């Protein structure tokens, strides 16, 4: 499964709930397969998608808030896991698409292949799920709705040469669309 396929599967499940997507190819894939007003495409500030997602989750307890993170992104802000695990937002679903690489900058390796990201998340109070196949991803998504968060969904993906187009909305438009949707 490549990131774009996984993004499409989860994006369809999310409905009108907000998604905060990490910078680089993550936001580009989401924009291409499932552009919605409730998507916050983070185009800079690498590492902060989960923090923005936490802020939105705390203020919108009736919505399920999805973070679409990458392994390189979350490794830049591991402290965020501690803050999320301490505040325990029930409505936060933190998805990490893990290809063991900084794909957006040319495929250089991250150290996510050397450690267990999901164990870090488990140690800080997340409910954790690890998936490698589309079938398992779909079945877990069906169950997640009933669970209390914070939920950490680690989706193992393979790298790909496929490139999605850049997000064409201006940052201010992204801001205004998201604010209206919340």
């Amino acid at each position: 499964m490549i990131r774009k396929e996984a993004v499409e599967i989860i994006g369809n499940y999310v409905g009108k709930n907000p998604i905060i997507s990490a910078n680089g190819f993550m936001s580009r894939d989401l924009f291409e397969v499932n552009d919605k007003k409730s998507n916050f495409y983070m185009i800079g500030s690498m590492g902060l998608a989960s923090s923005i997602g936490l802020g939105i989750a705390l203020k919108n307890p009736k919505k399920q808030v999805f973070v679409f993170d990458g392994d390189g992104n979350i490794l830049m802000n591991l402290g965020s896991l501690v803050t999320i695990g301490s505040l325990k937002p029930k409505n936060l679903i933190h998805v990490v698409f893990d290809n063991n690489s900084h794909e957006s900058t040319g495929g250089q390796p991250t150290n996510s292949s050397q450690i267990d990201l999901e164990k870090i998340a488990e140690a800080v109070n997340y409910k954790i799920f690890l998936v490698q196949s589309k079938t398992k991803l779909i079945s877990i998504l069906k169950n997640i709705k009933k669970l209390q968060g914070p939920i950490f969904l680690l989706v193992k993906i393979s790298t790909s040469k496929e490139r999605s187009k850049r997000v064409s909305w201006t940052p201010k438009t992204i801001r205004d669309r998201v604010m209206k949707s919340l």
Partner: protein
Amino acid sequence: MNEEVQRKIFHYLKNKKIENFVGVPDSTLKYFIDECLKNDNIIITTREEEAIGIATGMTLSKSNSLVFMQNAGFANSISTITSLVELYEIPLIFLIGWRGYLSDDAPEHLKIGKIQPKLLKIIGLKSQILTEQNWKVKCDWALNQIKEKKPCALIIRRMFHD
């Protein structure tokens, strides 16, 4: 800045609909932060950029937020401020304790302390210095800035040694 004024600033901003106080502690701001703690209205984060991210999410949810930090943390956060807060025009108030304002402050603060006003100016983040005399006027200025959807900074100088 004295204890009484720092505590008053928290309540003044809270009464003017600043709903969230997020950041990393700083000794220059310790009474302000203590007042946030006493009122159970604070999120202490692991790094300043994280605080900016959380406050951005809250502000997108139409809940006004202040991010507090020391100027060392401000220097850490410059790329986040330019590529998130300024790029998307997220109306946040930064409250920054200015170490290295005194030229004989601790050595680790001197270099950033000396260029603190220049850093703010170069990245285009409008700022005002809060004092025990002018704090109400400057808080009103900041509240007006965010009403116009502009981020801004309030600075408290470190005027003492410990």
